[in-house]
């Protein structure tokens, strides 16, 4: 339960970062974002994505263009705004810091484990 909660919290921040990363490569449709996320094994259902996209858009990080579709209603193609690009750079830096923190912590933990249990 506690683990689940922590995992959810971790994923939530990372999902947002990943979505921004995916969109940063260029105009993209929501279902394609899902496909990319699935490929990245950050498995989510589409329903989760729309509220997130809407929130990011309302925060001024994203914008979208209407593109006519042959398969149904017009589609929203998302792009990053300059603010979004700036935000993404901040997230990059934060991620590097987090990455360093985690790598260091994990290395420390592994070393400690190795010290406690001498090689067989």
């Amino acid at each position, binding site marked *: 339960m506690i683990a689940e909660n922590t995992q959810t919290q971790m994923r939530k921040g990372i999902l947002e970062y990943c979505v921004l990363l995916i969109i940063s490569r260029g105009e993209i449709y929501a279902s394609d974002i899902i496909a990319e996320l699935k490929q990245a094994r950050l498995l*989510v*259902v*589409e*329903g*989760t994505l*729309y*509220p997130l996209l809407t929130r990011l858009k309302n925060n001024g990080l994203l914008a979208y263009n209407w593109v006519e579709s042959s398969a*149904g209603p017009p589609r929203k193609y998302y792009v990053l705004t300059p603010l979004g690009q700036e935000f993404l750079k901040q997230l990059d830096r934060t991620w590097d810091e987090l990455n360093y923190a985690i790598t260091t912590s994990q290395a420390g933990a592994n070393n400690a484990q190795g010290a406690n249990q001498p090689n067989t």
Partner: protein
Amino acid sequence: MMHIEEDAYETLTIYLNEIKQHFVKNADDVEIVTDIENRLAEMLNEKLGNRLAKAITQEDVEAVMSQMGRVQDFGTEEEQFEQPEENYQGAKKLYRDADDQMIAGVCAGLSHYLHIDARWLRVLFLLSVFLGGAGFLIYIIFWIAIPPALSRSERMEMRGESTNLYGYKRHFEEELAAYQASMESGHAFKVPLRRNNFFQELFAAIGRVINLLFKVLSKSLAGIIAIAGFFILVGLIVSLAAFLGFWDTEAYQYFPLSIVNENFRSILAFTLFLVLFIPVLALVMYALRVTFHTLKINKLFSFGLLIVWLAAVSVGVYYAARISSEFKEHAELEQTNALKSFPVYVLNMDKNMVFNRKDSIDYALQAGAERTIIDDTDNHPFRVPRNVYIQIEKSESGKPSLTANYEAQGKTFQEALVQAKNIDYKFNQADNVLTFSPRLSLTHHAIWRNQEVHLTLKLPVGTRLKISDRLYDYLYFYYHHCATDDAAPYSEYKEWIMTEEGLKCKAELDKPQDVVPN
């Protein structure tokens, strides 16, 4: 333009509504929902594009839904937009329950809010009305202050059900089931009306109160009938047991029972028991069914009861006919006793004479004992029809005599004669005092066949009589109101005299003589 199968459409509609409900607290709900709807439409279109049949099936919808994800999964990623759910879902609000109202639904509404059975609250309010009427005032205040639950979401809030779509669906299904049940049971479905006016509501409530009072009244009446009937049933069983032999057989010598032939007694007692028991039982069962709706009466059982009752009635009628046929023939037995001559006779009546010597010993009665009062009034419930008649006539032969005519009925003359012989009548002459018994008795085990004794006292002209007041009820002549002077002291005995024209009151004969000289 898309074709969609009915069940698929239903599933999709519910799903979309659920999504709408889920995002309803989100500031951007319209946009998000539109995005999702568009995406769903697109996915369904793609499904259609791949095949010839142009209708969306349940499988298509389910596949699309699984791609979009369940509503419950949305929330975990987007909690920052959600209000804390506990406050919204499952929150209870106090409403008046219009679906379960007795008066205005205050108690029913409180019962949802407090999780107490409404009937206890109603009892509480009713009791507090008797305890000074505070409950009445509180009820009125609640009535005015608490709004009625009219819309579906209000009713769900009242019950503390979450107002998401699952809740809606469940609630709707429950309502539908309740509606169907009420249609089957024949009760009119109560459609809660939207009443804005307190007075409209008040009048409707007064109508319900009258209806309720009527129901309570009829139910309590039914309850009383059930309880009384139950005691009658127990009484019937006890008396059946008594009649069938637990009681001493002396009972059969008293009048209404003494009609019945000895060998008919058991069967007639049993028949009478059934004839009375079954209708009372039916009444009790009906009353119980009125009081408690749940009690069901087996049709076979009631038909069986009816048949048994009819059989008992016919057996009763048969025996009644047989007994009444024994009153067909009449027989008389005459016995004349000569009396010693006296110028004055005293006619007395002695109730103690009903008892024979054996009885006197049994009951420790002593002739002349001062405190012995036996059967002083004739209001006995089992009083034998009057069977002693006394007639006073002029003796043609000039000698006093007493003729007793013993009469009885029977199936044949012979039997009637036997019954007449069974008469046991007490008469006593001690010098000039003639003592009569007020009634005849029957020899042991004889049955009542309208036995009568007609006594004819024949007296020569000029004989004077002193007749006791107590005798008048049995006397068979018409002018027995013998008025005495008001001034004269009261006497139990009135004086009469036998003349050529018959018996005359002496006081009345004296009167003209008094008048003429003056």
